[in-house]
């Protein structure tokens, strides 16, 4: 399949795996920031999924399994690109956001209303300013993955997911305030 795939079968993996291509591509797009890189990442994800299809247990969460492969594939690529210019590491929230003093910008309804009116383009920009791990956890949560599922995808404890998600959302709120003014 594509780049070196096709050697694996689809023993445990039916074509319904393709039903998740949009969700996978959306996460890939937000991780890579590029349409072409996202397509390559999704394609590589399916190649690896087919090669590892015997490891998938039918009846378990196929979507979470595919997300895990995509995330691991992305990490492999990330490690190969040591000159990646992304702010922060994979496992951190943008230090600028972390260091930002907590402001009272949301302390009244006017600010909340302004936040509600932030346009789509600015939400995307704010999200892209976060670290990749922060983006990932926010997007997986939006996709409806439970904390347990996210923990399996990221390979960490459920409590870690909870704290990462809280920090990521807080960082995103801090970023959005710039667009809400």
């Amino acid at each position: 399949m594509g780049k070196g795939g096709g050697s694996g079968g689809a023993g445990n993996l039916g074509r319904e795996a393709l039903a998740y291509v949009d969700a996978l591509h959306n996460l890939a797009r937000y991780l890579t920031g590029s349409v072409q890189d996202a397509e390559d990442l999704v394609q590589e994800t399916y190649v690896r999924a087919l090669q590892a299809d015997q490891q998938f247990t039918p009846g378990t969460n196929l979507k979470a399994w595919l997300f895990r492969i995509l995330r691991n594939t992305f990490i492999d690529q990330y490690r190969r690109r040591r000159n990646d210019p992304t702010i922060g590491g994979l496992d951190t929230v943008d230090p600028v956001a972390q260091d930002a003093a907590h402001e009272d910008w949301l302390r009244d309804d006017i600010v909340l209303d302004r936040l509600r009116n932030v346009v789509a383009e600015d939400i995307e920009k704010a999200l892209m300013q976060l670290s990749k791990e922060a983006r990932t956890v926010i997007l997986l949560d939006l996709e409806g993955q439970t904390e347990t599922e996210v923990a399996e995808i990221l390979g960490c404890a459920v409590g870690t997911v909870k704290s990462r998600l809280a920090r990521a959302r807080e960082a995103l709120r801090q970023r959005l305030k710039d667009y809400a003014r």
Partner: protein
Amino acid sequence: MDCREAQLHLMDAQRGRLRPELQGALRAHLDTCAVCSRAEAEEQVLTEILERRLPQHPASIALKRRLAAQWPVAPVATRSWWSRWGASLVPALVVAVVLLVALPAYFEHTNGVRKDDTSGMVREAVNNYLRLISSQHPLDIASGGIHQVKPWFEGRLDFAPVVSFEGDQDFPLKGGSVGYFLDRKAAVFVYGRRLHTITLFVFRAGGLPWPTRGLEAMGRASASASVSRGFNVLLWRSGELGYALVSDVDARELRELGVKLAGGT
């Protein structure tokens, strides 16, 4: 419940994952604590704008075609499982053969419903769901509320779909369309759950092999819960109408919507 604990549970509460015994305590705390109440509002606004306005980047049609074209047609054996498991499987195979012979006869005798018939309904529900979510135009009528969607079906179906749940903040009604369920027309109602799609098919129930075993109370109905290819399916009937509720949300959330629907049918 103190502020630290309350804020720890805010996200779970928003996601409908908080245990019932904690929900009351959280609500009581929020009613009296301005700081936590504000934090809840902030989380809600952030969730709202992310769910409604964050641009989505679906895969291109070219990528979908490429993946579909390159998907293996048939399974390929990659390992000799018999050499690893064969000896230990012999007793299990003997039992399986006995069950294979005895169980179908038993069920046909006692029930008159064959498993693969019911499986056919589940399979149909999932296939219809997949068709709908992959469609470029899944909705014939975008929702302006249940009172716009239901009248739209008049003249398009040979029955009146009975659905009184008009959607709410947790499960907004997105719209409807006309589809098919096996050999008959169906009213299709589409609800949302965060970024997920939940589809309700309503159709004439007569002549279908409805499950009679393993039913669970759900609102005023008794429903059969199944998992097929990772999708959760609830099947139930009410009077002359049948209902199939399908989604990739987890079983508990789907059942939550099922109770709302069955309670009003």
